[in-house]
């Protein structure tokens, strides 16, 4: 039986449409996706893949739609990188995108360091320290135990510390 996908885009007063949701929250999704992929092009691809998967559920999930899209995005990210090219991915920026960045070196360093992490650790880093989720919430999102999130967090911190900040204690990081 052919599947039917209906158009979603009509909003009732007080209820945002799918377009309005994407317009208001799409950039926030993109920023998390950028941290996961380290690439603007892939980030947009990941956001659109998540939106495409989540769109049929827009009417049903109501106010929880953003959380739903984010879950789909993180699990899609995990699935994409499950198959191959573990840690190796395109590195260049699209030429039409400006590289006007105040701290380009710092950004490159961070992208390079995140790319060194296994995908699970990378997802935990974004969830815990960019999305500001608790360990329990991150565990729920990724479908793993809180203990796994704790251990992955600790390993990720250790790796990032050595990759990004090889200096000894007493450095210039904020106290």
């Amino acid at each position, binding site marked *: 039986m052919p*599947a039917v*996908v209906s*158009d979603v885009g009509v909003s009732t007063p007080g209820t945002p449409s*799918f377009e309005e*949701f*994407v317009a208001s929250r*799409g950039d*926030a999704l*993109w920023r998390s996706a*950028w*941290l996961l992929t380290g690439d*603007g*092009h892939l980030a*947009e691809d990941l*956001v*659109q*893949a998540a*939106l*495409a998967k989540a*769109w049929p559920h827009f009417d049903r*999930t109501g106010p*929880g739609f*953003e959380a739903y899209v*984010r879950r*789909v995005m*993180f*699990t*899609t990210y995990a*699935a*994409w990188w*499950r*198959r*191959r090219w*573990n*840690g*190796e991915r*395109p*590195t*260049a920026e*699209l030429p039409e995108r400006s590289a006007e*960045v105040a*701290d380009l070196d710092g*950004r490159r360093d*961070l992208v390079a360091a995140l790319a060194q992490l296994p995908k699970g650790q990378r997802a935990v880093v*974004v969830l815990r*320290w960019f999305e*500001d*989720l*608790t360990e*329990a*919430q*991150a565990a*729920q999102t990724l*479908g793993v135990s809180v203990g*796994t999130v704790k251990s992955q967090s600790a390993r990720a*911190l250790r790796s990032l*510390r050595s990759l*990004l900040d090889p200096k000894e204690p007493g450095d210039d*990081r*904020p106290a």
Partner: protein
Amino acid sequence: MTDQRDEHWLRERLAAAVPDAPSVPGRAASARDRRRRQVRRTTALTVAGAVLVVLATVVPLALRPPADEGGPTTPSPTGAQTSGAGPDLTCGRSNRGGGGGVPPDGAVAIRLCDEPGMHGAPAPTDVLTSGIARVLGSLRDLPAATVCIGGLGSRYTMLVGYPDGTVRHVGLDMSACGTVTIGRATFGRPDRPYEAFLAAIRAQRRTTAPPDAPVAAPTCPRFGGGTSPLGEPGQIVAARLCVGYGEPGSGETSVEVPADDLDALLVSWAADPHHPASKGPGCSPVTPSWELAGVNAWGDRVIVEAECGVPRYGDDEVVLDEEAQGIIDRLVLRAGFPSAASVVPGDVAWKTAEAYIDDVNFGHREAAAALWQGDPQLPADGTVLDLVLAPPGCRSLTVEPWRFAWSCRYRAASTGATTTFTMVRDARDEIWRISSVS
């Protein structure tokens, strides 16, 4: 140097590093178009697809505990329901809402239900009949809810049943800052009742036997469905091998794992000393990845992923012995992996190269030829492209002021020789096609 200080430093660095999002005015429309294309591809699937649909419908029903056999119930307007035959703790959409304060003492059963659309850690299917007081106690003295925007997390409804058939509903929303909804009141820290419930289920299972009903292999998890916190790989009693799962455009294939094969896999799993999972060096495209979607005797879902053919669970990875690896190889072939890879507009350029490598390696030569712009230059029939993306990966090349190409460098896993694919496209609504391989 403390972890807390590191966390603060990392939080600031992440926030500072993320660039401004680009302006994408057609993002919503693009997502909808993409969905429609996916649906069209899905409807084109033949018998294998139909079998998966049937399994997706039948298996969840088979996994339901006996209490579900009566179908969904309808709660009273206050959220409490009564019947003459004790509480009916059926999960369903009717679980939404509910009234009253914190469920009082005297409950005889508690069940946790997944909210519709939930794809996180699945709730246990068993009904809790012991240790109930401690779970109810966890609902008292909860802090006030903290308001957050957005966030992630699972959502459950906890059903609390009483001897007279009354059922009280408690909502556990683990997303954003997390909320516990009791009647019209909202509190924080949903992890407290959730963890209390899991602890009570674990204790109950130590003194009871699993259900007698046979357990069916689960379907492949969609959108990376989570593993139950109560399951372990060594407990799997039925499983399905999902191959190439999750790769956009590659289709999905799976096969149920025969009991004898499953036993051999688990023996190998238990025999190998588990190693800390580490970042691998990448693998050849001819090494398909797979997931073992298993279920234990209690109905808890357990997902073992295999990146580049190496199975992992949590922090561990395992090297399967020769017999077990042979079983996996045989099952992968039986699952029919891979179907011809496909690329759709909107896919990034390197996916075209990936699809091409797969198509050449598995004899889908027409599909491989269709990925070329102009005359295709395919290698000789039977050639295996033993290629992995090599640093620095892909670079963009400006070929005209308004037009650019992607150049992706690969190396042969066996010899180290490099091959460069160049992809171009004429318009944004077209796929990237290969213009040269050198």
